[in-house]
């Protein structure tokens, strides 16, 4: 299973990466894209939105199903990756290269509470 060691993960199959500017990039895992199948629609959240941890902020739809994307930490959305709307299939090809939104955490320490690669591997194999 493709689960990069340097990233953090959620129970709901998002990955999260700390950026140098203090924001966190978020996408869906390789396992999630594989479960969904061919992705045909991505809706990223708008910048400026304040969100709670676990709040549904975006949507990914494959040919067969729709799935929400959840905020891994509380904070403010600082960017949504609108380019994915025109090329949703990129998420299938490179799940970790496709961030869907960037969030500025209210509390940067919250990131440490997410799953590490080993813990996520257990979640994904269930």
């Amino acid at each position, binding site marked *: 299973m493709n689960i990069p060691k340097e990233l953090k993960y959620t129970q709901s199959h998002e990955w999260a990466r700390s950026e140098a500017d203090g924001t966190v990039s978020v996408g869906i895992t390789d396992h999630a894209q594989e479960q969904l199948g061919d992705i045909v629609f991505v809706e990223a959240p708008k910048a400026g939105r304040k969100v709670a941890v676990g709040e549904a902020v975006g*949507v990914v739809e494959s*040919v*067969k199903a*729709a799935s929400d994307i959840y905020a891994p930490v509380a904070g403010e959305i600082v960017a949504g990756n609108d380019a994915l709307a025109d090329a949703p299939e990129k998420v299938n090809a490179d799940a970790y290269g496709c961030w869907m939104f960037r969030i500025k955490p209210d509390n940067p320490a919250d990131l440490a509470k997410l799953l590490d690669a080993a813990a996520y591997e257990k979640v994904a194999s269930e």
Partner: protein
Amino acid sequence: MLKTTPLNALHREAGARMVDFGGWDMPVHYGSQLEEHHAVRRDAGIFDVSHMRVVDLEGPGAREFLRFALANDVARLAVPGKALYSCMLNDEGGVVDDLIAYFFRDDFFRLVVNAGTAEGDIQWLHSLNALAGHKVAIKPREDLAMVAVQGPNAREKFWRAFDETKPATEALVAFQGARMGDDIMVARTGYTGEDGFEVVFPAAEAETIWKRVVAQGVRPCGLGARDTLRLEAGMNLYGQDMDAAISPLDAGLAWTVDLKAPRPFFGRKALEARGKKREFLGLVLGDKGGVLRAHQKVAAEGGEGEVTSGTFSPTLNVSIALARLPLGTAPGATVRVAIRDKELAARVVKPPFVRNGKALI
């Protein structure tokens, strides 16, 4: 415990993603549903449809029995091997199942029915047989398996794999099958909107047949692609677009109900009393913002409707759906579909959306 077809081990070996499909362990795709879909539109694909049930009806009166049991009229089947699509109705005019009926002799017809409804269908046929005083033998053929080979090059590739079938199948027209011996049938039918064959054969031969067809460059396709292909082709799916509570007249199937002859088929009175209450048409999503899916609410000029089947169309690159809409809604109208927190505009069209590789909308 899920039921399995004789091709189950091959699907797993090929790396298929397996799902529970109405109690059957079936492949949804072998890697990419989209690529499988395109293979059928552009070249050829093969589907395991062994979960569907072949039911043979034998004995004097088989034709008369089916003229009573089916809403379409098998009297119009005169050439051996010719088939028709029909609904079987309950006493309220709802659809018990939709099926294909093949005529071979006046005392021998073959039905192919849906997987999830097969057991109920067989019970239903027995009760109609008793009710009408017929003594037709009803023989479910669990010893048979079935594949669909579909696409513009499907027949050519199938013949390359089985050239011995060509003389008997070359002249088949659409909706006609040929039997070779007791247990093999090749029919020019399908559920994709493309040319091709559905092939019925003894279960023990399934792996050999599958491998020989695939060796000719026919792509294994899962039920995922089968669903997007049939939806583009404007074909109904039982349990989704119609069921025991829905009349065929409200499911776009009036063309399959033969009311011309004064033929007292089961469910006719209820159907005629009930009349047509809904339009059944296609939708094409205009706005970006999601994918049309079953059960979404539709706001039309004449009232509310509902999406019965929806998907993303790989051929057209837009989201399409079949929907039950208020009476009087016509192609060309614009409706609004509730997708999550949005109301998105969709155009009403007359299905099919795609036939023989060509966009029709």
